[in-house]
């Protein structure tokens, strides 16, 4: 290998710094360094040409690259911005302390197709809740996810645009797993509910994991049998034994109340109603699969779950449930599925 001329190396390092300023926080990028260009056409041989190397999880090529550029222009690496030869290298570098990771639970993994019942969190809080389901803005038609305020925001100071990760942070989610941005919430209307606008990085379908498609919405009633799909307890079933409750909560340092609270009890005494991590999941009427309530709290002894009636939640947030069958958003580009770091 030839020696590098010092002036050329300094220029390469300056170009690397510029590339890092542009692209180091691009979620595709795993490393930016200075090194020999890698010749793909020569089977990955190291060349004699110095380059700024931008390493990415996946490197689409040909028509896949064109499709990707059209769908995600903001994620493209523009070599022309760097006044030095740039080489795009496909490589990921998992942290070594993660050499023997505990496998995340099934609902805590990355889902390339977003749906109800899977792990999410915001970028501030190290925890996870449940992605409730797909809704659309009544005025603009924009597609969003609906969940709890205490999962999607969790603070009176949470700004619009706060990143939402799938999976949630406590399930390994981080910046590159951003799937939505906090849009608005309904705490001021006495509802622990919020919506986040999808980024379009992944497609979303109207489906509750292991339960099925949501067919619409209806008011919960006493005695109604319900089912939900949540990150914490997976699929659980129950019966509504209390309605129109009010629940005390502190918000912004002041005592407030959550309204339209319905209580769910398991169908048998040995069943589970809910578990930590289920917040944000949707209770559906068991027979019709209509969404009836948004889960937010629970108690273990006896097993009970609390959820807010869905129609007032939808009205407060000015959204409708998406009942279409077709996926919404992008179709994952082959070879570009997110991977775990």
């Amino acid at each position: 290998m030839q020696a590098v001329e010092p002036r050329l190396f300094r220029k390469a390092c300056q170009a690397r710094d510029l590339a890092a300023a542009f692209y180091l926080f691009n979620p595709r990028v795993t490393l930016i360094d200075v090194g020999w260009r890698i010749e793909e056409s020569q089977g990955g041989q190291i060349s004699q040409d110095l380059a700024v190397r931008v390493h990415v999880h996946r490197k689409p090529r040909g028509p896949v690259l064109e499709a990707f550029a059209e769908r995600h222009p903001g994620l493209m690496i523009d070599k022309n911005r760097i006044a030095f030869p740039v080489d795009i290298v496909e490589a990921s570098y998992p942290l070594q302390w993660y050499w023997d990771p505990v496998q995340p639970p099934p609902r805590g993994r990355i889902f390339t197709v977003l749906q109800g019942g899977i792990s999410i969190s915001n970028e501030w809080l190290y925890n996870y809740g449940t992605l409730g389901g797909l809704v659309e803005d009544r005025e603009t038609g924009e597609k969003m996810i609906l969940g709890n305020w205490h999962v999607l925001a969790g603070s009176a100071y949470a700004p619009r645009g706060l990143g939402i990760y799938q999976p949630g942070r406590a399930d390994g989610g981080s910046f590159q797993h951003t799937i939505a941005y906090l849009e608005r919430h309904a705490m001021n209307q006495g509802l622990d509910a919020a919506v986040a606008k999808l980024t379009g990085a992944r497609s979303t379908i109207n489906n509750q994991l292991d339960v099925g498609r949501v067919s619409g919405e209806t008011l919960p009633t006493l005695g109604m049998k319900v089912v939900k799909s949540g990150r914490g307890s997976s699929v659980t079933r129950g019966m509504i034994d209390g309605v129109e409750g009010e629940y005390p909560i502190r918000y912004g340092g002041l005592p407030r109340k959550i309204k339209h609270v319905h209580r769910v009890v398991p169908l048998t005494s040995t069943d589970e109603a809910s578990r930590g991590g289920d917040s944000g999941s949707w209770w559906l009427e068991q027979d019709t699969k209509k969404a009836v309530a948004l889960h937010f709290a629970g108690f273990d002894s006896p097993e009970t779950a609390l959820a807010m009636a869905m129609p007032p939640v939808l009205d407060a947030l000015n959204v409708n449930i998406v009942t279409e069958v077709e996926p919404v958003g992008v179709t994952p580009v082959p070879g570009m599925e997110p991977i775990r770091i």
Partner: protein
Amino acid sequence: MSPENSEFWDKARQARDKLTDQLLNHPGVSLIDIGYEVNEKGQKISNHIVLRVHIRQASIRETLKLPAEIEGVPVRVVIADYKLE
């Protein structure tokens, strides 16, 4: 009075609102709702509809001085400390 009767539900809601105004800021109260009659452990014991005051600990009950009924709707206590999940 039938639980399906709208007059019953109007009364039940008014009674709930009275209880909420009085008690929801009490640190020992975790929920006030309308539902099936249950025992203190929250297990259903009949199809009668009652007002339910959920409290975090049994010892709080004495401090609340709850009436037996409001607006003709029976009041019951449930011990349950609900947490955000």
